[in-house]
């Protein structure tokens, strides 16, 4: 399991757990306004890194897109480094 980021305001906490399929969970304080956008950023970033199997949890405290992407990229880099 990989955890990146924080639960501070304007940040998000990304968790990656090995899984047999692709599962994306988003929990955001701005879900009504930006939920779709957050999901889009996560899917796009995963696709670019060729991740097709993993359980991704995003706990969002109002992070902007660049932060969500950066936290996820960091998590993916660590995930791949650890040989999942």
């Amino acid at each position, binding site marked *: 399991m990989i955890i990146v980021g924080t639960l*501070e305001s*304007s*940040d998000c906490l990304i968790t990656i757990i090995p899984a047999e399929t692709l599962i994306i969970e988003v929990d955001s304080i701005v879900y009504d306004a930006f939920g779709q956008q957050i999901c889009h950023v996560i899917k796009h970033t995963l696709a670019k890194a060729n991740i097709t199997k993993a359980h991704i949890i995003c706990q969002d405290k109002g992070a902007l897109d*660049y*932060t969500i*992407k950066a*936290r996820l990229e*960091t998590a993916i880099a*660590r995930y791949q480094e650890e040989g999942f």
Partner: protein
Amino acid sequence: MNRSYLFIPGDVPRMLQMLDVFDADAVIIDFEDAVALNQKDEARFLTRNFIQTHPPKAIEVYIRINHIIDDPKETMKDLEMIIDLPISGIVAPKINRLSLAKLDRYFEEKTSPLKIIGLVETPDVFFDLMTLAQHPRIQGLMLGAEDLTRIMNIERNLTGDNILWARSSIVYAMHSVSKEAIDTPYTVIHDHQGLAKDATIAANLGFTGKAVIHPNHVEGVHLAFTPTEHQILTAKKIVEYAKKNQSIRFNLDGKMVDKPIIDKAHALLEKYAKNGDKS
């Protein structure tokens, strides 16, 4: 010449996305001391994504990387992640001839235009200051008094009497090559009077700017590095008198004015015009 270099931690989104709202002339995004060892990658990814999405407009951005000799692995990762970003340069900790040469070689190989601000924070480097100052990659040198006094086992105090030689050495070296001499930050966050004193000492010694560790310090530093209204009025008077009378040597309000003083007045007005609309 920037009056303020504001440090912003590289791994805190809340601060990163606000880096241009504090009126600092320049910011330094920190990958080194402000970031824990196991979070260096977070800072790199976050900063890279931020700069790519929101390229800096009205502000100069620098990144303080890790130390190329002490920690080559982390530092090479830092460099790889920032080399193509639209920033002004890097801040190199514990600068000396060797670390400067290594960094310069890396930038040359990549044909990068990035400039280097060297952090002067070890005793030995004071005897190489002129060599560093003259290096074309060097844009300025910044005093790092916290590390320096720690290594030398001396107290930091508000008068700064025990770092006077260090301060002046940097000022003289940088003035001799017309580059930036940047003072060490004032580290007591809520002491604005102490900040004003410390920044005034730096400005009087001839520093061109000062590092800043908290956004609330920017205004105080700018105040110290901005000429007073009286200074501006006097400079205007001198410049106008010289122009009107086509004279380079005259008596103004009982004071002798000659060419160096007229030049100085011109320089002061030029500097003020550049920063006049910011505080």
